[in-house]
């Protein structure tokens, strides 16, 4: 965390999971920021090259699973001659605490950045107790 935050090329981490995929495509772990405000937890993921329709967000057993797929057909007819980064799908999963209102999850995609807004459950919101 103390590392410098200057802009640099971030080597893509390949996803390692216990389950194997049945398609011969590579998956990478998207870079993520997570921050918390008074009423929500926001997860920001970088998924460059993914269209809105190719993003799956699933919630199962308190785990939110994000899978974002690249459309490889865009690379048809292109003959690679020099390469500095790998191209593949993205997948990442986060375990939610039970303080999240699982019905109030918002997702937004802008310029290759996926923003998930996880609203906190009402009972988890900070309350001010008035002294009688």
């Amino acid at each position, binding site marked *: *965390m103390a590392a410098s*935050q*200057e*802009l*640099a*090329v*971030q080597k893509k981490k390949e996803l390692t999971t216990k389950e194997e995929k049945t*398609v*011969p*495509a*590579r998956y990478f772990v998207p*870079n*993520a*920021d*997570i*921050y*918390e*405000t*008074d009423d929500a*937890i*926001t997860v*920001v993921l*970088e*998924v*460059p*090259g*993914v*269209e809105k329709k190719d993003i799956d967000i699933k919630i199962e057993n308190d785990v939110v699973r994000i899978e974002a797929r690249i459309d*490889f*057909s865009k*690379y*048809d*007819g*292109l*003959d*690679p*001659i*020099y*390469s*500095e*980064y*790998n*191209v*593949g799908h993205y997948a990442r999963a986060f375990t939610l605490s039970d303080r999240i209102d699982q019905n109030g999850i918002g997702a937004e*995609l802008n*310029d*290759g*950045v996926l923003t998930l807004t996880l609203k906190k459950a009402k009972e988890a919101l900070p309350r001010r107790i008035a002294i009688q």
Partner: protein
Amino acid sequence: MLLTDPFDTLLNLQRALDALADGDWLETSPSGTGPYPPLNVFRKGDDYVVITEVAGIKKSDLEIQVNNNTIRVAGKKPVDYPEKASLHRRERLAGAFDRTITIPVQIDADHAKAEYHDGILALYLPRAAADKPKPINIR
């Protein structure tokens, strides 16, 4: 072939990457200020296509210049958090960048095109007519 693999193009790219990961095709360029953003270069017929991943950068924050055989991509990448937010995880990097690369062919700058979608910038660089190989007829 009975079965064609739709991932062939991609796997070729990945093989090229694995082979060239330690190469220095563009690394030693004296101009520019660093290796961001990472580039992939493709050939499409006579023309070149340069694709780069710049997630989180607005179209209006990108500046692209093409001249002869030099390409410059500059811009800034903001990463903002709301005030009063407490950060749990911070992996995304922010800052300004300015990268200049030289490719081994002359580019017809007037017909170069740039496209930006979903955090991917694609530069279509047609090879200059004067630079294209000329066929020689054998008499």
